[in-house]
């Protein structure tokens, strides 16, 4: 691509060679290759829905989590390629958001193909990489990794057939080792030799023979993450961060937003702004979904952005100054009224709002029978506030609308949802929209929205230049999606030391698509062997922008469930650990609890001493991973200040693909969730969020971070489960339970601030 300065006098950009679909692939495979795609199996599964379809294929449990990705029916589906120069390339579509999942997938591929890790690499992700979906739900290694495992094993077995023919021996006598098949007579042939000069394609076989996990060599070792060295040295180029991508002719946009949700733009004066040096254009836009044809607001990529004015300039500072000048002349209507934030910040009011939808997330037995069997009833209420995703890097997107086509540079968590939305908005086929994906700041779920891309799209359409939009810090806190608040009503029936009935009602400000939320985030399946369970979600609404935050509501559910378990245990007069263990039957659940308790020297205190331990556990049926925390805290009774000293984390995600990666996710998830429950709460007033920076919305600082003790139970005989979100789940309940153990004060709402703890202590 020809290089030219981004603007007169600007720097010569580095040559930008964006990946470009088939052209890139033809280049890669010119000298010969074997390519195994995920597509036919998918077609097979799709046909399975039809009347004449064959039964769904039987699948090895190690492959089962990946079958859902097989065959989205696209000829450009994901694949693994063995090239004639000895490289093994994988194309799949889940970006690595900093969890190391891509490194884990490559470890799996290396082992199935019997090659060293260095031989395997992953291509940059774009909208032709399709299709292991987007990143989320802790599915990277667990599900996409299983699909990669199948493709790599299919490639190996295809190569075995080729080798058998080449060497004139039976395939089952050949031994794969270090990228070659070895015959009993000592002859061997490399994968590269087998594919040289050929263009071979095949489809993944969902029933292919998988290598026994007992023989893995790369899986199970702490391979360093592939993305870290470049991130720590500022290398630039197509594997660097989105914010470091520079396209010839690129201009910068900053946005003037309404002062309140729903405020309409009345007037502004662009003339003085257009006279400012570097300013290129002032572009008013209305992205109220009701005013934008083609806008799909039903999915994850919701959009409630309203009206704004973009100032476009040749450099960022000129754009920022332009917005500041424009703000002086802009006039807006009043915004939509918000339900006032309760002074208590505890959200009981959610239970008083009209419920527009109710969902039974979990039901077992009958509440009537459960409570009739109880000798005592216990009730408690809990709540969690609005939480910000609060990424360190604000939203960024770059778009170039050209005649008949659109090019997008994005850090979206799903290139396809971005591609489809852009195509719909522009009235173009998806084939006319290319989306390049780059690493971004961690956004913890917020990356499904890709707001800055849609804003850049409309600005670029207006001015025809490649437009880079980056939000300012205040915009990120005010206009990003947030996790909605929740109010929990818990009721339990006790008979002796057994729970006979467990009733969970949650009132929650609607996130997008209620059913999706219900199925994936809010529904938790207690492993406890209670005979009667009811879990119901009541959806209410407040006009704030809601979306996904890491682990999608499960940590707040776990706060209510596992705090209430502690309250039931104390009501029954039973040690909280013993109370849980005696009502669990799953050995993996028992093992993580026991492991964490033993490491922490578990002992519930009978007399509050200011220091305490608290325990909580969680099982995610989707990720198939178990976690249990013991929190160790010290409480200053005079100030109410809680110091979380140490978190012991029992963790069982089946086979550990990369021990260092799993440890880091345990540390990270535990620390992030400690921050949520100790410090965080979005405050709003006058129609707008008032927590706008790191002072008004503090997160955990270095001096407040607990020591984290990961206690991983490796199970090499069980397929790997999900990891990324799991460590966040039991953190807040373990800390609240530890505060109770230390002081006798029960804290039933996030965040556990000194004022709240002090008030609870006064009531003891």
């Amino acid at each position, binding site marked *: 691509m020809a290089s030219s300065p981004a603007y007169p006098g600007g720097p010569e950009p580095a040559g930008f060679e964006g990946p470009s679909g088939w052209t890139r692939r033809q280049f890669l495979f010119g000298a010969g290759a074997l390519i195994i795609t995920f597509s036919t199996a998918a077609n097979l599964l799709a046909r399975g829905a039809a009347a004449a379809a064959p039964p769904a294929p039987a699948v090895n449990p190690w492959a089962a989590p990946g079958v859902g990705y097989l065959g989205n029916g696209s000829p450009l589906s994901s694949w693994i390629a063995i090239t004639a120069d000895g490289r093994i390339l994988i194309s799949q579509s889940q970006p690595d958001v900093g969890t190391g999942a891509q490194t884990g997938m490559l470890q799996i591929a290396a082992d199935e193909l019997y090659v060293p890790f260095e031989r395997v690499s992953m291509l940059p992700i774009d909208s032709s990489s399709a299709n292991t979906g987007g990143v989320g739900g802790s599915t990277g290694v667990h599900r996409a990794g299983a699909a990669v495992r199948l493709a790599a094993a299919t490639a190996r077995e295809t190569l075995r057939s080729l080798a058998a023919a080449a060497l004139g021996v039976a395939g089952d006598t050949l031994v794969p080792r270090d990228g070659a098949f070895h015959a009993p007579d000592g002859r061997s042939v490399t994968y590269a030799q087998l594919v040289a000069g050929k263009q071979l394609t095949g489809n993944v076989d969902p029933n292919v023979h998988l290598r026994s996990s007992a023989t893995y060599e790369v899986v199970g070792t702490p391979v360093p993450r592939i993305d870290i060295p470049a991130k720590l040295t500022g290398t630039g180029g197509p594997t660097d961060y989105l914010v470091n991508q520079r396209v010839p002719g690129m201009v910068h946009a900053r946005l003037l937003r309404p002062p309140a949700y729903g405020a309409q733009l009345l007037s502004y004066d662009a003339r003085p702004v257009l006279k400012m040096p570097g300013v290129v254009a002032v572009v008013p836009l209305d992205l109220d979904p009701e005013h934008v044809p083609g806008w799909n607001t039903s999915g994850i990529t919701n959009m409630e952005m309203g009206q704004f004015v973009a100032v476009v300039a040749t450099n960022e500072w000129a754009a920022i100054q332009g917005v500041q000048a424009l703000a002086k002349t802009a006039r807006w209507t009043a915004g939509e009224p918000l339900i006032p934030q309760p002074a208590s910040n505890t959200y009981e009011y959610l239970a008083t709002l009209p419920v527009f939808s109710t969902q039974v997330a979990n039901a077992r037995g009958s509440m009537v029978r459960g409570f009739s069997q109880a000798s005592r009833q216990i009730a408690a209420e809990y709540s969690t506030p609005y939480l910000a995703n609060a990424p360190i890097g604000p939203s960024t997107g770059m778009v170039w609308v050209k005649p008949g086509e659109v090019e997008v540079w994005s850090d979206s968590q799903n290139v396809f949802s971005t591609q489809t939305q852009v195509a719909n908005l522009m009235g173009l086929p998806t084939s006319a929209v290319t989306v390049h994906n780059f690493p971004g700041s961690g956004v913890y779920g917020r990356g499904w929205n890709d707001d800055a891309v849609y804003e850049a799209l409309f600005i670029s359409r207006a001015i025809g230049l490649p437009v880079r939009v980056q939000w300012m810090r205040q915009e990120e806190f005010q206009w990003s999606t947030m996790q909605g608040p929740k109010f929990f009503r818990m009721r339990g029936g006790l008979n002796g030391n057994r729970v006979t009935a467990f009733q969970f009602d949650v009132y929650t400000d609607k996130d997008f698509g209620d059913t999706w939320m219900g199925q994936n985030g809010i529904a938790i399946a207690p492993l406890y062997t209670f005979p009667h369970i009811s879990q119901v979600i009541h959806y209410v609404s407040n006009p704030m922008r809601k979306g996904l935050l890491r682990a999608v509501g499960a940590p707040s559910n776990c706060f209510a469930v596992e705090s209430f378990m502690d309250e039931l245990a104390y009501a029954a007069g039973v040690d909280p650990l013993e109370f849980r263990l005696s009502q669990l039957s799953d050995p993996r659940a028992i093992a993580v609890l026991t492991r964490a308790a033993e490491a922490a020297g578990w002992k519930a205190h009978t007399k509050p001493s200011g220091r305490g331990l608290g325990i909580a556990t969680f099982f995610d049926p989707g990720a198939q991973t178990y976690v249990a925390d013991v929190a160790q805290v010290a409480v200053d009774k005079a100030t109410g200040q809680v110091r979380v000293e140490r978190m012991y984390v029992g963790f069982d995600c089946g086979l550990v693909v990369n021990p260092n990666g799993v440890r880091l996710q345990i540390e990270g998830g535990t620390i992030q969730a400690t921050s949520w429950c100790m410090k965080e709460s979005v405050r709003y007033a006058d129609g707008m969020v008032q927590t706008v920076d790191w002072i008004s919305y503090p997160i955990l600082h*270095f001096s407040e971070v607990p020591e984290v003790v990961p206690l991983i139970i490796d199970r090499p005989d069980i397929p790997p489960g999900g990891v990324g979100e799991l460590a966040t789940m039991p953190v807040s309940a373990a800390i609240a339970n530890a505060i109770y153990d230390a002081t006798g004060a029960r804290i039933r709402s996030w965040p556990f601030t000194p004022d709240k703890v002090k008030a609870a202590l006064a009531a003891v």
Partner: protein
Amino acid sequence: MHFRLNGRPVESAFDPTSPLLYVLRDEFALNGPKFGCGLGECGACTVLMDDAPARSCQIPLAAVQGHAVTTLEGLGTLEHPSVVQQAFIEEQAAQCGYCINGMIMQATGFLKQNPHPTRQEIIQAMDNNMCRCGTHLRILAAIEKAAAKGGV
């Protein structure tokens, strides 16, 4: 404005009121310093000014006249990382990594002033650099490792 950037003399034609961050990113096409808050609160934009950590989003270009500015690119390269960069790589001290430019620059400046810090001194020195992924323990371990190697 004339200043030294990663060891060589440079001249900027930008608006002297522009924060140094945008000069580094937009005029000199550097990748290390990141925009995080523009308020001096998070540390993602940290550079060294005459060997001391400084938040480039808070320093007007006019204030760097005659000074020496070092960015992440000026510490080491992918092939030859600095001692601190190498320690961060060995400890795998990054998740998304967006804050890590600031962590490495802050730590490098701190270790130049205090080559043999206690863990508590490191925590104090890093306390106003924000990390959202929860990489803090790895970052502390990396800085301790760099200090133990006796260099930056």
